[in-house]
């Protein structure tokens, strides 16, 4: 009972780390590093980068697309500026035809009659499993980073945590 109430008091006193949360969005794991939990931050960063970079490797830059896959991108955006950089790279390098080739896609007879211009897509566009897994990996990287950001938001600073732990021990003793 005493331990529970002490824990509640400590939780109530704990300040929210807005700066660490912003750092965590700017780069995965940076929030924990700012709070003095360097190893924890680096491990979280590695896990999220395995997902994000793995997604780009599997699906290519096309798997981060803020126009065609808007809902997926909402989740991917939680990974921070790296997601926006990938989306920008997709627009600048692949959709413009700078890499690969832009080829016309087939249109239906009705579209042809109504004068719809034949849309062009890159030969580097991901399809089927490659696109699905690439998109999913980057999406999960965003969601996991959201968890890591929330952890940084409520986590006590490394030095405070040690101090409080000592205080808890003294009170319960």
């Amino acid at each position: 009972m005493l331990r529970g109430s002490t824990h509640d008091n400590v939780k109530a006193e704990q300040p929210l780390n807005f700066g660490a949360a912003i750092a965590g969005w700017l780069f995965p794991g940076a929030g924990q590093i700012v709070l003095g939990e360097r190893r924890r931050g680096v491990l979280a960063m590695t896990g999220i980068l395995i997902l994000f970079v793995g997604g780009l490797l599997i699906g290519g830059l096309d798997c981060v697309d803020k126009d065609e896959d808007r809902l997926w991108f909402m989740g991917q955006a939680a990974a921070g500026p790296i997601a926006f950089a990938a989306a920008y790279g997709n627009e600048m390098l692949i959709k413009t035809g700078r890499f690969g080739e832009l080829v016309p896609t087939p249109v239906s007879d009705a579209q042809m009659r109504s004068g719809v211009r034949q849309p062009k897509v890159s030969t580097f566009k991901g399809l089927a499993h490659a696109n699905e897994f690439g998109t999913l990996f980057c999406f999960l990287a965003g969601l996991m980073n959201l968890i890591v950001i929330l952890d940084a938001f409520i986590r006590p600073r490394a030095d405070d945590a040690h101090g409080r732990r000592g205080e808890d021990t003294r009170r319960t003793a």
Partner: protein
Amino acid sequence: MPSVICSACIAWSATIPQLTGYIPFLEPLPASHRLWWIFVVPLAIGLAMAWKAVRLPTLEHYWRAVTTMVVQIILGVIGIAVGLYVLVLLVLPRLPAE
């Protein structure tokens, strides 16, 4: 010397795509249509590493916890696959049509 290394790197990066026809990160992984199921392994590793990094009170047994979670995810996915295989290919065809 750095300029020589730089030119060698540029020449190398320009030659590789011509040899293999594959540019990493710009186009999808070529073998992904055949080996898509193997992606569950890096997926589980990335998820477990990020999750355990924030959930464990101390990082003393971090790698053991990560390994356990990776195995759990992979076994879970295999279990779901077997369950769906049995349901779709064995159970559902035996049900009466009407």
